[in-house]
């Protein structure tokens, strides 16, 4: 039981870390000499040092990507918080519905963020030569993990 509890928390924290990293790190799209994320557009030298950054365009779709990423972080943190609350208050045999729902919401948010980014990024990213960076991939990885941990929360019954 303790092991299960620990692994659930570890999974949740892992999701949170993934969300934070993918939101913050400037590696959504990399190309020769530049790396962009949701917040800024940086030019880099060949050795990987960041030269100069300027803030990204105020494109509506980019803003909604930022918003959904922030929302997913908020929901995930809220879910972790609620999990600890429910751990102590829930009656025996109860399910962690609210925790699970918020975690699933976080997963859906990060999915929509990544999906919008995939479809719409040519609008604000004009370089034709690019590849997706690791932060973008982490966002996609965070989606099934968040969904998985959300489903686990919903399925799980509280034992003493």
């Amino acid at each position, binding site marked *: 039981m303790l092991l299960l509890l620990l692994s659930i928390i570890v999974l949740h924290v892992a999701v949170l870390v993934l969300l934070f990293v993918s939101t913050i790190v400037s590696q959504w799209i990399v190309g020769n000499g530049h790396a962009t994320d949701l917040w800024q557009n940086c030019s880099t030298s060949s050795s990987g040092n960041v030269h100069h950054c300027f803030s990204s365009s*105020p494109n*509506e779709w980019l*803003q*909604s990507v*930022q*918003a*959904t990423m*922030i*929302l997913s972080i*908020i929901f995930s943190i809220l879910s972790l918080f609620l999990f600890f609350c429910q751990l102590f208050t829930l*009656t025996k045999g109860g399910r962690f519905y*609210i925790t699970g729902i918020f975690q699933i*919401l976080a997963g859906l*948010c990060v999915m929509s963020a990544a999906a919008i980014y995939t479809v719409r990024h040519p609008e604000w990213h004009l370089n034709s030569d690019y590849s997706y960076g690791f932060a973008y991939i982490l966002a996609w990885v965070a989606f099934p993990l968040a969904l998985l941990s959300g489903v686990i929360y919903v399925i799980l019954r509280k034992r003493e």
Partner: protein
Amino acid sequence: IVVYTDREVHGAVGSRVTLHCSFWSSEWVSDDISFTWRYQPEGGRDAISIFHYAKGQPYIDEVGTFKERIQWVGDPRWKDGSIVIHNLDYSDNGTFTCDVKNPPDIVGKTSQVTLYVFEKVPTRYGVVLGAVIGGVLGVVLLLLLLFYVVRYCWLRRQAALQRRLSAMEKGKLHKPGKDASKRGRQTPVLYAMLDHSRSTKAVSEKKAKGLGESRKDKK
């Protein structure tokens, strides 16, 4: 006197824009208060007066580029010297200066607002961001609230039903002590109902059973 305006205003071609101007004065607002709006075209050197308000009377540009396009919407009593410019054009780009004199308080700086006319007004940074975050959080909160209200009402109805049932089952045996025990009994009933509330069928069955029993009791 201190005059306040926005730093920048954006407007779309053909639409109208309000140039806000307010002030803080150490004196009471006097009858001699005057507002002056000056306009300096983008790249131009000279500022021209386009609007003047004095002695309760607005004087509006009748010959220049803003002819018949300015409207006075301010009110000196509310320390408001705002004007509206209608039917914007690209040539209206420039700096507007608001100057307020409230004798005897006349020493102070003017305030400037820069007008940018666009074909389509770009959304300001953070508007969509804030709207999406606020909207989704609001909807989630609302849903949660709704869920809890519905559940609360449901539980209360069930509890009331159960109380009536138990009262019927017990007849008028405990009548004198009923009021005193009511409060104490309410909570366990609620908890008991938590288990039953999942299947209304069980409840209705029990209800029917209870009714039957009570009928038997009556016989």
